[in-house]
């Protein structure tokens, strides 16, 4: 007996159209089709600024893990360049009429890198592991379960309506729901899988600690028929080897690009961007990084009061803080929305536009007058391990002092800062960069 909800006949088959999307941000385009007649083969050397802690994408919260392993693993659905949700390892999918379940019909003849054919059992085991992991799986309801219906059909039963489960499932970034062989998923413990076998266009070859991760072209990759578009459609490895070299020192990444040691450099410092752009052999690309955020101690102190947080939020000069952190408006975007600038076609709203970046301290003046502020000291904790967060904190301190607040800055190393964040008596504010979320409810401050 089919126990899952009835599925809509007319909705969500194949594609969910969130909305059309343009990109006027000046960023590198995420179109798709490789150039006709493109050269194939060879090695692509990427100078990457960090080493991933682990390679299990379900378990890791590191962008480095997903940046590298998204070439090895695939998920049931993904997004095109306009963030429409498209099937990847699924042939099709349907959201039930009441939004409580998603049925996936699986593609046939998709091979893992070990030569085995992907089955419904593999999908169920992988998704069960993902749902139990600290990655994006925990953003789904606790009631969510995955069940095999037949050899090529699985159903994700959410237990309650949650249509935004779809963008979470399709989000191919940190914590994405990678599909792997059932035996590896079932054997994995909290430290992650020990063997990295997926279905992607590249297969894992080696990880030499503190040196590199090497991926090789997967010759038996099951390529989709649709044209490439964003992360959807045909994926094709055009190089034989993809080498991520861990180059933590930014000046080494820069000089390695100038000497042609590397083909691609990740996380080029803003200070070096103009220098590299002037080299006729090099091209700079900007892309969405993250968003800078003021986090409050809401358990103790000045900002436990909602009115205090409102007064600050509607008084600060965001543009000045961003300029202090990123130097040029080439590298930041003013944005009143809680989703990032590249996601606003999907999540548009004018709410907040009138109170964002006002640079008008009268709201704080009124609040301080109302509470009879007596000069209570406010502590901002920050780190010089991330210069943007430090520089932004300094500008924020200056603005708050101009509002009449008594503010001090304490500087710590990053691990200490994370520990202090747990101490309700240690701080009032810290400025942090947060990565983009799959959908509004997945933002860290929504939990």
């Amino acid at each position: 007996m089919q126990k899952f909800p009835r599925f809509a006949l007319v909705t969500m088959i194949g594609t969910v159209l969130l909305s059309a999307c343009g990109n006027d941000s000046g960023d590198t385009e995420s179109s798709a089709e490789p150039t006709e007649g493109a050269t194939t083969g060879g090695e692509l050397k990427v100078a990457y600024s960090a080493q991933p802690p682990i390679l299990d994408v379900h378990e890791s919260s590191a962008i480095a893990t997903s940046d590298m392993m998204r070439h090895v693993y695939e998920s049931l659905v993904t997004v095109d360049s306009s963030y429409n949700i498209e099937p990847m390892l699924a042939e099709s999918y349907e959201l039930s009429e009441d939004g409580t379940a998603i049925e996936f019909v699986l593609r046939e003849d998709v091979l893992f890198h070990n030569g085995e054919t992907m089955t419904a059992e593999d999908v169920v085991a992988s998704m069960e592991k993902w749902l139990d992991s600290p990655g994006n799986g925990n953003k789904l309801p606790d009631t969510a379960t995955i069940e095999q219906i037949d050899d090529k059909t699985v159903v994700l039963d959410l237990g309650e309506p949650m249509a935004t489960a779809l963008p979470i499932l399709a989000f191919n970034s940190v914590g994405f729901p990678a599909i792997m062989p059932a035996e590896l998923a079932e054997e994995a413990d909290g430290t992650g899988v020990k063997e990295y076998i997926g279905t992607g266009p590249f297969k894992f070859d080696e990880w030499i600690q503190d040196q590199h991760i090497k991926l090789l072209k997967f010759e038996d990759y099951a390529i989709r028929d649709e044209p490439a578009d964003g992360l959807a459609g045909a994926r094709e490895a055009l190089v034989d080897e993809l080498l991520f070299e861990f180059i933590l020192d930014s000046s080494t990444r820069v000089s390695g690009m100038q000497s042609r040691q590397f083909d691609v450099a990740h996380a080029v410092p803003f200070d070096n961007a103009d220098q590299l752009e002037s080299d006729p052999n090099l091209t700079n690309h900007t892309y969405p990084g993250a968003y800078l955020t003021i986090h409050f101690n809401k358990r103790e102190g000045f900002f436990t009061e909602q009115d205090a947080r409102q007064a600050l939020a509607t008084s600060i000069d965001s543009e000045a803080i961003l300029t202090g952190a990123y130097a040029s408006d080439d590298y930041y975007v003013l944005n009143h929305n809680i989703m990032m600038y590249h996601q606003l076609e999907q999540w548009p709203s004018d709410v907040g536009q009138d109170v964002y970046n006002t640079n008008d301290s009268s709201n704080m003046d009124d609040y301080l007058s109302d509470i009879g502020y007596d000069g209570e000291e406010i502590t901002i904790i920050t780190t010089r391990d991330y210069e943007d967060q430090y520089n932004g904190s300094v500008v924020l301190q200056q603005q708050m002092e101009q509002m009449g607040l008594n503010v001090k800055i304490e500087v710590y190393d990053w691990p200490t800062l994370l520990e202090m964040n747990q101490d309700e008596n240690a701080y009032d504010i810290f400025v942090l960069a947060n990565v983009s979320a799959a959908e509004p409810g997945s933002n860290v401050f929504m939990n």
Partner: protein
Amino acid sequence: MPSVVDDFRASATLEEAQDKYDEVLEWYWEYIPVVRIGDFKRVATTQEYIDNFRYQDGFVFWGVSKND
């Protein structure tokens, strides 16, 4: 978590979630769980012989070739 956020999460369709999104932002600007200062970009550099370099929620190296 306030009911407006729970209601948003309980949307049966993405269109319904999008319709409720203004209410989520109204809650955000009322409660101020954090202050989003703004978004920032990052820079990657490629050699000029690299073709079809792309970024979408991470680097995309399938479809990329070296034409030197």
